[in-house]
């Protein structure tokens, strides 16, 4: 048996919704950034910096960053409960390391976005 205490939404249904919602946000963000880069083959620093200076882009990027953390947490939690079933402490340590990564990504990403 696998504990559900570390489950993000404390239930499979919440996790399912969080994973889908974050997936849609990330898909739109990916397509937008891809489109922007493809549309400007000789991208200059001024254009790139200008894009990330916009408040709406900060909102969009922060939404994507939070989505990455939520989406990756659900995914990694699922992987850990699928494969690390022999030892609860080992699974917990794995989840702790993953959470450490994601928290670092979140703070690091906010620092980058708000330095612009």
């Amino acid at each position, binding site marked *: 048996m696998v504990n559900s205490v570390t489950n993000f939404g404390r239930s499979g249904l919440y996790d399912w919704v969080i994973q*889908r919602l974050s*997936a*849609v946000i990330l*898909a739109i963000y*990916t397509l937008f950034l891809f489109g922007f880069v493809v549309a400007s083959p000789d991208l200059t*620093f*001024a254009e*790139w*910096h200008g894009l*990330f200076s916009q408040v709406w882009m900060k909102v969009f990027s922060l939404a994507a960053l939070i989505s*990455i953390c939520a989406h*990756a947490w659900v*995914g*990694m939690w699922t*992987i850990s409960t699928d494969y690390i079933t022999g030892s609860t402490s080992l699974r917990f340590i794995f989840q702790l390391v*993953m959470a450490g*990564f994601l928290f670092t*990504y979140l703070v*690091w*990403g906010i620092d*980058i976005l708000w*330095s*612009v």
Partner: protein
Amino acid sequence: MNSNRPKNLDLTTIELPLPAKASILHRISGFALFFAVAFMLCALGASLESEQSFNELKDVMNGGLAKFITWGILSALGYHFVAGVKHLLMDMGIGETKESGRTGAIITLIAGVVVIVLAGVWVW
């Protein structure tokens, strides 16, 4: 739960059906992307810090290893994207039967290869 139920989880003795292959690749690409975020944040930070770091990043991205890593990340992202769209479609009830699930897996795998090749063309 009946703990005596027969189960065979020795993957070396199982021929995975196509939807299972599409699914495990989705998981592997997601696992890889988890660590790729560190590279992406590194690049984003350098690209936005100053004009000098932006140009330095452009130079670094012209290197062989950097191109290979970029292609790898784009490939994982591209496949994860395609397989994710399939997931969302299946959530809406599209392609849920055994036959259509197989068709969906074939489309996903082919689209994945196309995206990976296109990403390679774009990078090099």
